[in-house]
């Protein structure tokens, strides 16, 4: 039926355009080849849509507008939802033609809102829910920014600033793997009503630990030449000696007792000479291609986090296509308007399939373009940003809040930038995001009302 086609078209659109923002960073940093990226994205987008897409879909289906208002004439509700889909599709097509950044989530929410407010009246709209959604649009980029900042700060302090980066990476990698797997397991487990919260958390932690152990085995096998110079003196000793020197100088300065003074200055002199000799012997000169080794290990982590983002994206964005379709389905099948109907699994599967097909036919081209332009996101930075974004999007999907995945990613990248991780970021994007927020909703609302009247003319 027409609604299905429209929903499928939306899903196709999402797959074609939105996925690039999620996977482009991994292709750009050469963590994934284009083929592998598309393949992995397809699997995980579908998985996310199928397994976790129901929450957000329900919100769009019946959370924003109260369907019972339309009891007198259910067809209006049906046409309204179809109109929303049509309007959003048109808006997205226009936006991509003109090269404007428009979020699919903002578009569909705006469209549904427009239909509800204009046709159903002010009371038809669930303003509380809308308030939640609006605040989540502001909070999600912030949260993902904070998360990425935290993750990258950890990477910075423990790995980049360490005296043996590769060894530190080998120690920290299992921890990051643990984080990734726990987050995914948590979102999947607490989704089921048959597991209590404690059991869910426990199970997720176990899965995370198992993955961490496995990754530890993999990482330990990477042998690297140890950081020793020919004379057997490590840079670690040089730096430690300098620290000891500073401490001793502090003692010397704060010392008031004349008896100890000469002894301290004696030791100070010896230590100074020792430090100088050790420093001369250690040459830091050939120790800086270590960072390439670190990046290599992080490539695997970035692939992991990219899959996570694809999963989260599928979960959150499939609702944009399927939510209205589900609403229409429930009305046409049961001929009543209820607030209780759940989203059928086959519908989620169709949504997921739509995204995958969109990705396979057109999306890969966009991923290629994005990947060519983003070459500065090295695996360490990419991992931090993607993990922050993925965790935020997963959380929002769990809570049933539709958020813009693109904005979450942008927030995450800014988070990494704040931690001094990136070379140059365009703050202009913040202005663009604000403008697109303000413009999208009224525009889509208007279009949706227009579409509704159009459909009414056709069908009634």
């Amino acid at each position: 039926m027409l609604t299905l086609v429209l929903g499928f078209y939306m899903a196709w659109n999402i797959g074609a355009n939105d996925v690039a923002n999620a996977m482009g960073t991994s292709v750009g940093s050469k963590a994934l080849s284009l083929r592998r990226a598309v393949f992995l994205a397809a699997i995980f987008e579908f998985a996310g849509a199928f397994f976790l897409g129901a929450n957000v879909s329900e919100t769009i289906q019946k959370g924003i507008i109260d369907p019972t208002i339309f009891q007198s004439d259910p067809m209006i509700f049906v046409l309204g939802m179809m109109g929303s889909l049509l309007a959003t599709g048109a808006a997205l097509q226009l936006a991509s033609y003109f090269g404007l950044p428009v979020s699919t989530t903002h578009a569909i929410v705006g469209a549904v809102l427009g239909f509800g407010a204009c046709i159903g009246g002010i009371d038809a709209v669930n303003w509380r829910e809308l308030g939640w959604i609006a605040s989540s649009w502001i909070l999600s980029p912030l949260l993902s920014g904070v998360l990425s900042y935290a993750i990258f700060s950890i990477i910075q302090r423990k790995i980049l600033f360490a005296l043996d980066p590769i060894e530190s990476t080998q120690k920290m990698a299992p921890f990051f793997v643990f984080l990734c797997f726990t987050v995914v397991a948590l979102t999947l487990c607490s989704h089921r009503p048959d597991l209590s919260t404690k059991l869910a958390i426990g199970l997720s932690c176990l899965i995370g630990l198992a993955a961490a152990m496995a990754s530890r085995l993999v990482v330990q096998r990477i042998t690297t030449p140890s950081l020793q110079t020919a004379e057997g003196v490590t840079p670690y000793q040089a730096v430690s000696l300098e620290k000891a020197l500073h401490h001793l100088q502090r003692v010397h300065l704060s010392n008031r007792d004349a008896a100890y003074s000469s002894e301290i200055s004696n030791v100070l002199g010896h230590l100074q000479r020792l430090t100088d000799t050790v420093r001369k012997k250690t040459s830091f000169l050939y120790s800086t291609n270590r960072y390439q080794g670190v990046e290599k290990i992080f490539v695997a982590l970035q692939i992991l986090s990219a899959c996570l983002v694809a999963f989260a994206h599928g979960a959150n964005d499939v609702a944009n296509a399927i939510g209205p379709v589900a609403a229409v389905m429930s009305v046409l099948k049961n001929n009543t308007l209820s607030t209780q109907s759940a989203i059928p699994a086959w519908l989620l599967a169709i949504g997921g399939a739509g995204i995958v097909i969109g990705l396979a036919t057109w999306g890969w081209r966009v991923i290629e373009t994005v990947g060519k332009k983003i070459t500065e996101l090295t695996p360490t930075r990419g991992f931090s940003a993607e993990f922050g974004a993925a965790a935020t999007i997963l959380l929002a999907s769990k809570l049933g809040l539709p958020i813009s995945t693109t904005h979450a990613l942008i927030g995450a990248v800014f988070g990494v930038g704040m931690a001094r991780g990136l070379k140059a970021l365009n703050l202009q994007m913040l202005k663009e995001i604000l403008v697109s927020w303000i413009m999208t909703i009224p525009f889509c609302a208007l279009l949706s009302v227009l579409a509704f009247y159009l459909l009414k003319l056709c069908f009634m």
Partner: protein
Amino acid sequence: MLTIAKLFGKSPFAPLQTHMDKVASCIGELPALFQALVAQDMKAIERVSQQISRLEHEADLTKNDIRTHLPRTLFLPVDHGELLEILSLQDSLADQAEKIAERSTMRKLQLLPEMREDFSSLCTKVVEAFWLAHKVIKELEELLESSFGGIEAQKVKGMVEQIAFHEYETSQLQNHLIKCLYQGGDAMPYPAFHLCLSLIEEIGRLACISEELGNRVRMLLELK
């Protein structure tokens, strides 16, 4: 949509390194100039001087290019002011080279016999100090990768200390030369005396600027 791609701005760090390479080509002409100075070959001095002028102009074009493409809305891991300072210092290195070249063309340089050896040492030391500073700027790429900390920062710190030591040695040589000049320069005509003094000071200034450049980069580092 290409939203994520538009997020990344044009990094000014690569152009900064290109500018330093252009400055290096200026300074690269200096050893030939110094040789011609000592040999009192005015034709060669003229030729090299014009070459240095041309190269300095090219470096200036790159510098202006960088400055125009550094909008306030670009978010960098270092302060805008610090970046522009480093650029300024690189530019003053090229300017200094041009100044030395111009001075050399004024008149034939008369060196007292006891000064010859030290003068050659001064020239080599100063150019060495510059090449060390050049190496430091080349390390910017790695520094960005390590987020300005860790062993990379220790390495750059060591390099900067080397430049400082070179500057100290240059200072010593300069003082010694000027002392010789004051003590033995009674017989020299005033213009020749002044040219000698002026050239020694200008050449020494090159090492000073290199040290300042090194210090500016050191200020960016996160050393524990």
